[in-house]
């Protein structure tokens, strides 16, 4: 499919997805339309349409329990792991791959859309094994793995700290180092999108700053969607912002657009109060 056709198709997607578009869909890596997430009968997220622009940072903010994490986890089908969880609607990657399709190749999908969790979760094995296991799974040759590992560890600024202890356990690293390791591990698979689920909230302020800078540095290289409770952090790093709020007992997208506009001049009254710090 040539780029212009792709762009046309994305525009079509966008026109069906209502008013949720942040920017022109032609530059979006993930086009989400009318996405709902249910836990048994309860709906956690209702009818969210949002485009996540390519190689830019989209911050998803909102009070607790408004469905931000459920939304984020549905973007790479981690919701499949939760018994009783059901997702409806459409999530398309830029090449037209439908993520919500029941027959979608989940394993390769999760390689393309990586995720970093709130708590760092390295495997309780050596730093090297943390890269070998996923890279081998996705078909990398043994001889290529050390170079790949070094490259991504350099990208996250961890190489100089760990290059002489790659055989040592990953869970003996500090919290901030572990989180950077997890980011490197996600980057190693060469994803198009990385989702961050409050990546700094379990870290001390200094480690949090390092990880935030790291996420900021990913801009232009990979598409980032980050859920955060830290509005100051969202202001500092986001190009685009989406505000979730609870409407009729379900999480809903109430405001989205370029970060500067959303933070300075929100249209939705709840979003305005939340972003000004008066509520939430």
């Amino acid at each position: 499919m040539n780029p212009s056709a792709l762009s046309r198709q994305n525009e079509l997607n966008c026109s069906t997805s209502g008013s949720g578009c942040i920017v022109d869909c032609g530059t979006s890596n993930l086009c989400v339309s009318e996405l709902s997430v249910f836990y048994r009968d309860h709906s956690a997220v209702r009818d969210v349409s949002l485009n996540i622009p390519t190689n830019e940072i989209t911050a998803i903010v909102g009070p607790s329990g408004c469905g931000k994490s459920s939304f984020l986890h549905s973007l790479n089908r981690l919701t499949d792991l939760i018994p009783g969880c059901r997702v409806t609607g459409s999530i398309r990657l830029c090449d037209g791959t439908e993520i919500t399709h029941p027959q979608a190749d989940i394993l390769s999908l999760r390689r393309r859309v990586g995720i970093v969790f709130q708590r760092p979760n390295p495997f309780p094995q050596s730093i090297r094994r943390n890269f070998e296991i996923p890279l081998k799974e996705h078909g990398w040759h043994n001889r290529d793995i050390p170079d790949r590992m070094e490259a991504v560890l350099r990208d996250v600024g961890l190489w100089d700290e760990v290059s002489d202890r790659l055989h040592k356990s990953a869970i003996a690293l500090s919290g901030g180092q572990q989180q950077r390791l997890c980011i490197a591990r996600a980057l190693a698979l060469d994803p198009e999108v990385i989702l961050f689920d409050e990546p700094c909230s379990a870290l001390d302020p200094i480690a949090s700053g390092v990880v935030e800078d790291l996420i900021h540095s990913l801009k232009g290289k990979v598409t980032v969607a980050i859920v955060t409770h830290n509005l100051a952090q969202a202001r500092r790093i986001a190009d685009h912002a989406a505000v979730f709020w609870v409407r009729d007992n379900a999480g809903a997208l109430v405001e989205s657009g370029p970060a500067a506009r959303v933070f300075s001049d929100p249209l939705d009254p709840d979003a305005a109060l939340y972003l000004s710090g008066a509520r939430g």
Partner: protein
Amino acid sequence: MPTLAPPQKRRVFPVLGDRVFGAFGMAAALLSFGLFAWIVWDLARLGFPQLSWGYFTGEVEDSGRAGGIGPLLVSSLLILVCCLGLVIPLGVGCALWLSEFVKRRSVAARLVTGGVDLLASVPSIVFGLFGMVFFGQVLGMGFSILAGGLTLACMILPILVRTTLSALESLPADLRPAAAALGLTNTTAIAKILLPAALPGIVIGITLGIGRALSETAALIFTSGYSIRWPETLGDSGRSLSVHIYDLALNVAGGNTMAASSALVLLALILLVNSVAVALSEHWLRRRHQTP
């Protein structure tokens, strides 16, 4: 407004209760250790003088009143190998299925855990009779090391299933999403991440099982039999050390001191297996948590 004083409980002997309680605990602890020390002392007093290199390598003579326990050590070891060969894949597989493949509250899972727990409360003599009929007669193994080992495997299966299950369940909950998020298959996640992480717990389960298997008598009398010859194949009958102790103590007049010698060897063997397993587990845990 008068201030309310907290109610004062009158304690006649405020410290006495603590002292009595502490003394009782200490007495219980001393008694427990004393029991162990007494058994070891008694076995050592009676059994140690007979121990020599020849005792470990020699054949049983005069119904066990003289000679050594060479063939019995080999038989015991072979029975153990047969037992572990069956129980490790069976027990670990069952625990994996329960923890990773079915919902905990499903009927199937409850049936299996219930069955395994019931198995744990079956007396070992019942296992012996079952093994004699099933392995010995139905499967035609007769009195053999293989039949004895497989019977023991059935007996220690619940121990291994339970310990492996609790090892898997005590793993950090975020390992599974971490593996899934990287696009790993279930097989890779289990084989390369969950099982290695649960290994210390599994090894402890195997150790407990070995201790139980080495000391088992009733399940072996009717399955691996009494033969004191050097075993040549797994189809041969072979007497285990525990059966030998039972036989010497009960059926052989004047066999008491030799029974004590064998018991001493058995005790030492079990202690050895335990300390190796504990050392291994600690080594793995230390390697996992060592500061880089």
